[in-house]
């Protein structure tokens, strides 16, 4: 049953978090996850609905002295069409391109995708590669209060984050990757459109004097949260890319993922695909870096 008693359309972050502070509120932006969850009875509206679509300061992509900032209300289409990101951070654009369908991309926001905290959330993967931080804002002691948190510490379980009830995810920030940074995004599924990942994998790193540095591996749909595969990263860090390193990485990643059996795939298949994808990611990386060199 829809039992919304109050509806607000704040036009600033300050206004939004003051409303949030009053409690019992549901935030809606694109609504592409919220609406089906409500429809399915998996979630209920709180008594207050706050539509944050008019908070313009939460929208847009900017770069300030080597630091990228993407507003929480930026849509997946905005990311897909950003020439800045296409030039500087193509892996983000690639993930956006794999995201749902054009209609959903037009409405779905970055903050929504992160706060939904699906282990299969597509946008989480490239942002984990970029060591992104989330900006969480609340209203404390009659003023706006901001805290920043590494994205990898933001997720705590399927659909669960450390976001407090009075907090709003206003933006995502990350530093410009170091020179030579190369990243890839892969996603599986029996059909390309509107696919929930069986496994999604992001890989990033730099090739320095023939050895791998700054290895980042992020995997979707293989654990309760989008996973940073730190053990596998360590296996590869400082290694030259030979068959033995690749084989060890495959073994490590298959050890590190903790998938479940569900209606989409078995744990066995997700583990298998993780191995396939790390091998492909490394081949891609090798191809790109060889080309660059």
């Amino acid at each position, binding site marked *: 049953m829809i039992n919304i008693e109050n509806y607000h359309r704040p036009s600033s972050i300050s206004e939004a978090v003051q409303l949030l502070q009053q409690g019992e509120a549901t935030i809606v932006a694109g609504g592409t996850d919220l609406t089906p969850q409500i*429809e399915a009875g998996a979630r209920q509206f709180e008594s207050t609905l706050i539509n944050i679509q008019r908070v313009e300061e939460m929208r847009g992509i900017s770069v300030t002295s080597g630091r990228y900032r993407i507003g929480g209300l930026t849509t997946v289409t905005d990311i897909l069409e950003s020439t800045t990101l296409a030039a500087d951070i193509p892996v983000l654009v690639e993930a956006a391109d794999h995201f749902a369908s054009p209609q959903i991309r037009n409405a779905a926001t970055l903050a929504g995708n992160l706060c939904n905290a699906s282990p299969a959330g597509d946008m989480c993967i490239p942002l984990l590669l970029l060591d992104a931080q989330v900006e969480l804002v609340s209203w404390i002691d009659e003023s706006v209060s901001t805290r920043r948190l590494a994205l990898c510490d933001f997720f705590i379980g399927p659909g669960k984050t450390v976001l407090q009830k009075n907090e709003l995810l206003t933006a995502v920030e990350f530093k410009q990757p170091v020179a030579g940074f190369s990243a890839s995004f892969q996603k599986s599924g029996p059909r390309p459109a*509107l696919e929930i990942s069986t496994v999604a994998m992001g890989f990033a790193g730099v090739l320095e004097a023939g050895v791998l540095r700054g290895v980042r591996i992020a995997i979707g749909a293989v654990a309760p949260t989008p996973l940073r595969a730190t053990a596998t990263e360590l296996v590869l860090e400082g290694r030259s890319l030979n068959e033995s390193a690749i084989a060890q990485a*495959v073994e490590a990643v298959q050890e590190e993922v903790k998938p479940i059996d569900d209606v989409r795939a078995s744990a066995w*298949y997700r583990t298998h695909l993780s191995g396939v994808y790390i091998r492909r990611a490394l081949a891609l990386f090798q191809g790109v870096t060889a080309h660059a060199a």
Partner: protein
Amino acid sequence: MSSIKMGKAIQTSPVFEKKTIIGQRVTKPDAPDKASGRTVYINDMVLPRMLFGKILHCDRVHAKIISIDTSAAKALAGVHAVLTGYDIPELKFGPTRDNRTLKAGKVRCIRDEVAAVAAESEQIAAEAIGLIKVEYEDLPPVFSPTEALKQGAPVVHEDHPDNRSLSYEFSHGDVAAAEVNSDIVIEHEFEVPYVTHCCMGPGCVIADFETNGKLTMYSQTQYPYNYKMDLAPAVGIHPGDIRVIQPPVGGAFGSKLDVYPFEPICALLSKAVGRPVKLTFSREEEFINSPTRQPAEFKIRSGVNKDGTLTFRSVDCLMNNGAYTSWGPTTPVIQMRTFTGHFRVPVVEYKGLAAYTNSVYAGSFRGYGNVQATFVTASVMDMLAEAVGMDPIAFRLKNAQKPGEVTPQGSKLDDCKLRECIEIAAEKTDFLKKYKLYAQDRVNAGRIKHGIGIATSIHNAGGAKIHKSDGCGSILKLDDYARATLITGASEIGQGIDAVLSQIVMEELGIPMSDITIVNNDTALGPWDVGVHASRTTFVTGNSALRAAKAARKQILRAAARQSNVSAEQMDLREGHVVQADNGVSIIKLDKLLRQMHFAEEPELVMVSEYYEPDSELEDKNHVGNLSATWAHGAYVAEVEVDTETGEVKVVKMTAVQDVGRVINRLGIEGQMEGGISVSLGYALSEQLQIKDGKVLNPNFRDYKVPTAPETPEIELHFVESDCKASPLGCKGIAELPAIIPAPAIANAVYNAIGVRFFAPPLTPEKVARALHDQVPDNTQ
């Protein structure tokens, strides 16, 4: 149009060339409104004073109903009626009368309807449903048909203590002897899944019980005339007191070929409140409660001699009946024809049995049992070919029937085009060259493996006589302006019959399509028809319309001949004129002639009615008889790429060759074939309603994967046109074969690519990857 001078007169008469609309590409008349959003579908309809119905489905799979408390629901403001199975008489319905509307006593599957509400809004109805309290006592359930048939299994229906539902047996010749005399005998088991129709318009009905006791149903049904007969016992009224109106629907594909409980429940709600009531399924309800394709397990033994001659085929089919019987367990009637009659098999045997379980139940679905049969036979044909060392084409040609042969069940293959279909399919795809190349390449390293595969089948293409009549009536009238109205029994459920019937009228009467109106959505107006099924609509209702159009034409030309020195035989109707057939010169404008006929001293309206009954036979009790007036074959070739690491199968190209008799609407037939291929692509690779312990695990489009545009392959179509003698129009029914044949062609192509045979569709990436992984030790990855 041109003109020539007539005698001394200055006035000239226009001249019209003979043109034909048959075989042309014609836009469906309903397409512009559908494309622009103007169409009012049944789901959009609102009637004055209409209330909204909702059903409480049980959350158990097998349980006694101890009590139902509806008091809180009844007390809710805006609720007009709450019904349970204890408020209404026990009215049985369904093909075997084993179902009832609202359940009482016990529930047998997750779909069971326990209570229903009529309220001012959908929201209030939903809230009221949430207030109904039902107390159950669980009973031990049974889900597998094999388990259900064992001694001591839980009993689903007390009047069927052995859980046996429908059964079928057919045999021809001595299987044991044939087996002894066969050089090679193979036996395999197949299992086919639950899949569902995925109509874009979810289940919806509006029932309006009038004060005079008559019932009007606004229904999605695709068989309106028999629907009245099937609905009546569920509501407890006379079939003659039911009027069925068919607003535009968002798809049916066989799913609306039966009465499902929500329809009579809606009628009972309307009766209770004295107002129209609309009941609509949510997408989730649609996935859970609408019928599926019949799942089944097959055991098939087949024999062949070293020279490649088929010797026998023996099939055991075990079907999960689910809790009640809809059309699913009757599909062996069609399925059997393929097992016993596809290719020349001298000795055949078929046994089919459906067992009651606490699972959901299946209905009819485009292909009607032949989808399952063709997956099995087309796979086995490839295995037999390999066993005798022949290629798939030569082996099939060796065993293909010739025109005039009759199958053991009596299907008369008078104009059999099976050989042509196979030969064209092989030639157009360069089949043998690719087949050998890909098979050799299997042993080489490489992530992507290519494969090519063929499958063929046979299907009824001249209706299917499963009722005493398989006919259709047509009433055709022309008004004073030469506008024609065809009132037909044919139902339009999106398949495009309105365009086809307009073409037929246009061809005979020489009037433009835009001057033809098709009326076919009201049983109070339309004459009898058996409905949209069995690929029969163009064949049966088209030939009925042709009769009516010919009768009207005859009447018009007779009248024209009376006032002209040209005989009726020397006249033709072209572009709104009566013309001389030899030179096309106009004799009189058609509308002028019609007015002259109408306002004559002995007035005459052009208004004819005709009935067409195809030349087919009911089966006898041994399942023998020429069930369809004609039969058609098809041969489809799939070309695939298999990713041997992820197991993903990509269909690159589908080449379809089909005997269609004669193309009527080229655009329509292309649409039907492409759509059918998409249905079969899903069956082959991705679609499966996952049911565990009687519950549906993926009742949504996120996890039930219908093919989308990007994975649709390139499609190449070839029509074999034979001008079918059994059909006055020359056409054959075409709509089901495209949904039947592609899946096993894909499975055969996957075998060609990777050497793995799959016995249970869909070939999901995981299934393919697992099979490849189990073949190869892990360390060789």
